[in-house]
């Protein structure tokens, strides 16, 4: 069993002391951080602090020094996100902070992806994600993207206020066959249908599957506007994405 003093990174030490209250959990985290190298501790700390530029730089440096890609993922990125999860659960931080951490994690993953493809490991699937035209709400969509990326998907995030043309352009550019649309307003919900119609007009409807979500969206509404699937939350979004990817793989082998 390690002690708090065994965690050399000062930032991590402070974080553990300040935010992890439960003894057993604290010990588990101390053991985790004490066992990883100093450079990995630094990456974990940068993740927790949401410093994506630092994560980007340190991950690159570590890989250059022949640290194994999966070690970076496990000891740096995941170890950092584990504490983010605890702080979030105990209400020390909130969704905006969590998303900043997720962005930092993505900066690290960006260096691992090329190694994955060089090793012959393709992403689980490729998803275009965006909030529809006229809508500026992005938190639900961002949580979905975080989950998708964490499950091995390659995600192209088109952000908010995405026009049907932007969606079509992204599908063509990236060769994706899955599109996720989000809307939070009842007034913008119909734009999901308009986007799908635009795909029909462009003769691209059969090449892609649509999944939709957002607070006012329901299963029935999804069906009505001609989407292929509906996801109630970020966790379900991953399940739906996996299912649709498998379906289109069987259609377009």
């Amino acid at each position, binding site marked *: 069993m390690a002690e708090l003093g065994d965690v050399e990174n000062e930032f991590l030490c402070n974080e553990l002391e300040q935010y992890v209250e439960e003894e057993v959990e604290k010990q588990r985290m101390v053991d985790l951080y004490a066992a990883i190298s100093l450079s990995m501790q630094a990456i974990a700390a940068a993740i927790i602090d949401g410093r994506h530029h630092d994560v980007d730089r340190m991950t690159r440096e570590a*890989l*250059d020094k*022949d640290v*194994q*890609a*999966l070690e970076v*993922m*496990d000891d740096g*990125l*995941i170890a950092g*996100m*584990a504490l*983010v*999860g605890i702080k*979030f*659960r105990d*209400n*020390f*931080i*909130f*969704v*905006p*902070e*969590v998303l900043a951490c997720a962005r930092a994690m993505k900066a690290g993953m960006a260096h691992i992806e*090329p*190694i*994955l493809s*060089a*090793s*012959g*490991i393709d992403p689980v699937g490729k998803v275009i994600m965006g909030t529809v035209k006229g809508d*500026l*709400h*992005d*938190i*639900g969509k961002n*949580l979905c993207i*975080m*989950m998708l990326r*964490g*499950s*091995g998907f390659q995600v192209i995030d088109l952000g*908010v206020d995405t026009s049907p043309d932007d969606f079509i352009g992204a599908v063509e550019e990236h060769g994706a066959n899955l599109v996720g649309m989000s809307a*939070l*307003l*009842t*007034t913008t919900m119909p734009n999901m249908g308009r986007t799908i119609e635009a795909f029909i007009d462009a003769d691209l409807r059969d090449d892609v599957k649509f999944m939709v979500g957002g*607070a*006012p969206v*329901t299963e029935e509404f999804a069906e009505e506007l001609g989407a292929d699937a509906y996801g109630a*939350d*970020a*966790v379900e979004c*991953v399940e739906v994405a996996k299912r649709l990817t498998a379906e289109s793989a069987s259609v377009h082998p």
Partner: protein
Amino acid sequence: MKHRKSQKGRKPINRADYEECLARLSDVLRDIATHADEQALLRCPYKNRFDRCTAQFACGYKRARQTPEGLPCCASDDHLDYRTAWETDPASVDVMRSQLSSTCENAGTVSCDGRSCEAITGKTIFHHADELDVQVPTSCGRMGTCHECIVEIRSGADALASRTDAEAFLGDAYRLACQAVIEDAGKRIGFELLRRTPKILIAQEYRCIELEPMVTRQDDKVYYGEEELDTYRGQLYGVALDVGTTTMVLELVDLETGRSRYVESFENPQRFGGSDIMTRISYDGGHYNGELHTAIVNTFNTVLRGICKRVGISRHDIYEILVVGNTTMRELFFGLDVQSIGQKPYRSKIEQEYLNGARKTTSLRESARKLRLLANRNAVVFGVPIIASHVGGDIASDLVAIDMAASTEPVMLVDVGTNTEVVLGHSGRLMAASCPAGPAFEGGLVRYGMPGCVGAIESVRWRGGKFDYETIGGVAPEGICGSGLIDLLAELRRTELMTPKGVFRNKAKEIEVAAEHGVTLSRRDASELAQAKAANFCGQAILMRQFGVSPSEISKLYLSGGFANYVSVSSAVEIGFLAPVAEDRVVKIGNGAAQGARELLLSRKKRETIGELVKQIEHVELETTPDFFEVFVEGCQFKPMDWNSLQ
């Protein structure tokens, strides 16, 4: 850049290792996403840890930036749906609201035992009980077959999906926790377990009795009387079980030392079949015949399994289960037909067989295996003989506890309960009667009545223009239990806030008992209590008259059962609940039936003695007394028993 290695130079990633790594990441993220979802019901997700707004869109709660480069403040207090303030088309607000209302402002709850959690559509009551850390008994893996997880829905029953086939046998307010699914998560649902553990007096000091159990060890063999049961496994245990209509007491006894190893009291799980004996009988005669028996056997096994674990013995060490109970409870435990007890002349089949000479005794013997009871495979289940009609083995057991067979002067035993039983006499002559008092003093029929559980008002005094009270457990009052009701009625009489006929002063409809907690007593409650009290009164008065003794000639009045141990004798005498016997002659014996059961388990001699004694007891049918109705009406009044007027 010249040091930078090409991708090709890096070590490839093993697919299986990567997938494991990904699974770990997904686990971490899934917890985050799930928590985000839950939190979104209470707090705007765009609001950061410093309560600043990070949203890119306009919102009614956004307040001026404190510094030019800083984020705006959020003025939402999180009590209202924050989403309605977001920039949106005015007409859509209502639509949004109605869609969000079920998950936001009106978030429903599920509560039990003072704890509550958020209601989730599509999940069962059992799931919510887990959330609340409330232990619901089950042994079928929540499939709806063991019928152990019966709960009483106290509120919000309409928020549950309609009952499944597995629940068809249950009455209105009862559901199986594993089957009842929440359909409308916007309601408040309250439920209660059937097996709350009531406060029951368990005798702390045992009488020393000669150790002579039926189960004995001779060398390496275990015998029941002369029969060989098993090879000795290192210990001999027996169970004494008192099956009350409302409460059960299970005691695990070491048959080699006579020492009690564990006592547990719990609610009789048959409440879904009605709270009194007559409703249980008619329930058992209906479509769901056998359910009451199943419920009690399963509960017995669950409780005993827990005890064995705690004490550290095996079920195979248990060789005898001795059962005492009123006639109906005993027969239901043995899985016998009880219909004849519900109709004149109110005799069980066993009693009929005894009376027409087909059997020598009303005691019962069955194998534990046949009744599916948790015990050694050759264990014996013994049912203590009943006295007559409703007066069952529990009263016989009481008589063991007070050593009735040795008394030479007239004594009276009053076993207070849903059915109050009275036995009067001495070793030479004994009379018994059963009085159907109903559950008014035990939590039924009275609006704020409750069993003697934590939160019940157990004693009441009128002081300084209001009621002073004490609750069990010293917590805020939820209702009043039997002893509290008797005190309350006596105080209402002493202060003349109520007439003997139960009319409140100034024709008030109700009296506030604990005003700050909304506990009251209504006229109707008083009338229910008057009738229950009258049943107790009739039993004592008629028996004394038939036997030919006056209250002053009674050398001992033994009070047994349920709440009797907590009752203030002076209050009980003042309202005529008890005969006017001098207080120093009143002996509270606690749960006499449980005590007697333990002694019967340990002594063959006592078993023989009581077997003979019950045969001599004259059973008096109160309703056949010519002036029964007059005595009953007299008994309905809240005043001391006037012996002279009864002559």
